[in-house]
């Protein structure tokens, strides 16, 4: 069965996905879908986006053979897809720019977005500055504390950052508030959702804008090794860098795909963000997906050391790929991610985002079990500058 023709026309990936939103938003998401389908086949839209990706974002990003990390792991060869080198420091800009162009195309002048780690907020604030759109970003109070630097970046870029105090005051609650804001301002505002989740057509739009990661990787790897990699690894919050990396490989059955969620303090604890390992299917934020929830269907708080993975759900396409076993999903703890962040920094001189460090940690385990003739590509989704304060508070540092 082919997996690349989904979602169906109603936005379903098998039983997952769909459009479980208030009626007030239906017209907006139907319009968005129509406009997106037109833009997709409009050469002038695609050219404008591609020019920006090249000259403004700095694509294509390098595919880097991490010789020292490979030696450290001992086993399969590790390549890094350097999304951390994008303008603004993460993959999020690929999607933000695409959707900001769509906003213009729909004749809307304002944008609302949620953010967890602040990377999507920064990317969206950046795209809005560039394209002269008004920008409001909702961010959980807890995340504002852990990601001070990004909050200030958004403000410098001209965005209004609104602190969300409800619930766990993290990404889930920021999405709730962004949706509420969108319902109230739908006439002139587009919601730039930051991950491959939410109601149809967002999971598809975000996937398509992020697929540039996997497309480039495939060509670059072919050029270097004259074959496809044996394994591809990406971390998962809502799942946008992962689906962007995986999608172009879905039909290449010989390529093993690995999605890495956050195991937080451990899967046996209550404090993790492993929606696939520990959740069950349900409906939140407009989509049917695996969710961390109690037996009464109340959503549970997620926990992760990395704000970008701290979400109790996972995008619907990943749920489907999990059920059909095309992608293997696993989880990495806070401590393992912290360790991997330090290893990559010391061996390669690359400080990864804590989110990406989950993928690095998993790749290190995987590499050990692979032959030196085999290859792993890791999506290095972002750089670690934003996390330095959080990391220092965990592992300490030199005092003046």
């Amino acid at each position, binding site marked *: 069965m082919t997996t690349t023709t989904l979602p169906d026309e109603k936005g379903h990936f098998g039983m997952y996905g769909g459009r479980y939103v208030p*009626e*007030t938003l*239906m017209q907006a998401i139907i319009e968005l879908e129509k406009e997106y389908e037109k833009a997709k086949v409009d050469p002038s839209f695609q050219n404008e986006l591609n020019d920006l990706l090249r000259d403004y974002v700095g694509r294509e990003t390098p595919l880097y053979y991490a010789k020292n990390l490979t030696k450290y792991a001992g086993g399969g060869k590790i390549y890094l897809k350097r999304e951390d080198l994008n303008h603004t420091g993460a993959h999020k800009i690929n999607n933000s720019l695409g959707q900001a162009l769509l906003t213009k195309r729909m004749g809307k002048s304002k944008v609302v977005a949620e953010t967890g780690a602040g990377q999507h907020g920064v990317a969206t604030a950046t795209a809005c500055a560039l394209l002269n759109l008004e920008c409001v970003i909702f961010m959980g109070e807890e995340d504002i504390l852990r990601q001070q630097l990004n909050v200030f970046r958004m403000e410098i870029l001209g965005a209004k950052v609104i602190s969300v105090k409800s619930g766990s005051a993290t990404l889930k609650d920021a999405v709730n508030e962004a949706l*509420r804001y969108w319902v109230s301002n739908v006439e002139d505002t587009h919601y730039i959702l930051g991950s491959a989740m939410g109601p149809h057509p967002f999971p598809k739009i975000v996937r398509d804008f992020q697929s540039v990661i996997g497309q480039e990787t495939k060509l670059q790897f072919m050029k270097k090794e004259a074959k496809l990699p044996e394994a591809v690894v990406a971390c998962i919050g809502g799942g946008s860098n992962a689906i962007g990396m995986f999608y172009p490989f879905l039909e290449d059955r010989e390529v093993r795909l690995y999605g890495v969620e956050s195991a937080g303090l451990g899967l046996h604890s209550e404090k993790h963000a492993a929606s696939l390992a520990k959740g069950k299917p*349900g*409906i939140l934020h407009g989509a049917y997906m695996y969710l961390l929830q109690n037996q009464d*269907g*109340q959503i549970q708080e997620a926990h992760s050391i990395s704000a970008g993975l701290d979400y109790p759900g996972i995008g619907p396409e990943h749920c489907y790929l999990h059920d059909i076993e095309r992608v293997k999903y696993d989880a990495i703890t806070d401590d393992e991610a912290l360790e991997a962040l330090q290893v990559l920094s010391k061996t390669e001189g690359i400080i990864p985002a804590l989110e990406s460090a989950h993928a690095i940690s998993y790749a290190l385990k995987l590499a050990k079990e692979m032959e030196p003739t085999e290859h792993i590509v890791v999506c290095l989704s972002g750089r670690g500058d934003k996390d330095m304060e959080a990391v220092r508070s965990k592992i300490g540092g030199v005092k003046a």
Partner: protein
Amino acid sequence: MNRIEKVFKTMKVEGRKAFVPYVMAGDGGLASLKEKLVFLQEAGATAIEIGIPFSDPVADGPVIQEAGIRALNTGVTLQEIVDCIREIRPIIHIPLIFMTYMNPLLAYGLERFSRDIQTSGIDGLIIPDLPIEEEEIITAYLDEVKIELIRLVTLQSPIERMEEITKRGKGFVYAVTVNGITGTRAQFATHLSSHLKKIKSVSPLPVLAGFGISTPEHVEEILKYCDGVIVGTKIIELMEAGNYEHIRALIDATKLPIA
């Protein structure tokens, strides 16, 4: 005949307008639900909307969010709410309508939920995160036990969509009066009256307006263009404050002759 259908038939014959208040089950403890329903029935409510608390109510403003959190903090479960309705039902004669989001229903099991609410005496269901595109997930189970799924129409719904929604609808149509979430409003959009008239003109069902209605003056004004009003946030605020007289005043505003 379902109680909702019956009530609206009578109202039409008698030329009366409907008032449907909203209460959050479990807010103030589940034991208080009975007193609230008895009071609202006695004060003249046409039917009562009973909210089932959910952790992430995206269609609700701060007042209903907080009522939901208070309810959840008491540890109340959907099963307990259903059982409570079964117990109270013999003394409540007006239609009772559950309002909740999809996820608690999925966790309960959609088929079991439909059967259990029917036997406990619930007549209708409002699910704000279930547009017509997705409703197949539950309609077969509801039809089986004759629970009426109340559909919402909003300021954003174009005329063809209004027609489609009202055609499918059961009981009554819920006309959302604002672009936004629940919560009191001082004013409504100037085109609200023409919007309500448009819905009235296409709808084979009675049209009830809700979201933001908070004063007897709002009630009077809006009733010029539709068959009834639904009041949520304001009722919760007034109940919190123990201001039952003000609730009576809101309900009594539906009884004034329409100018």
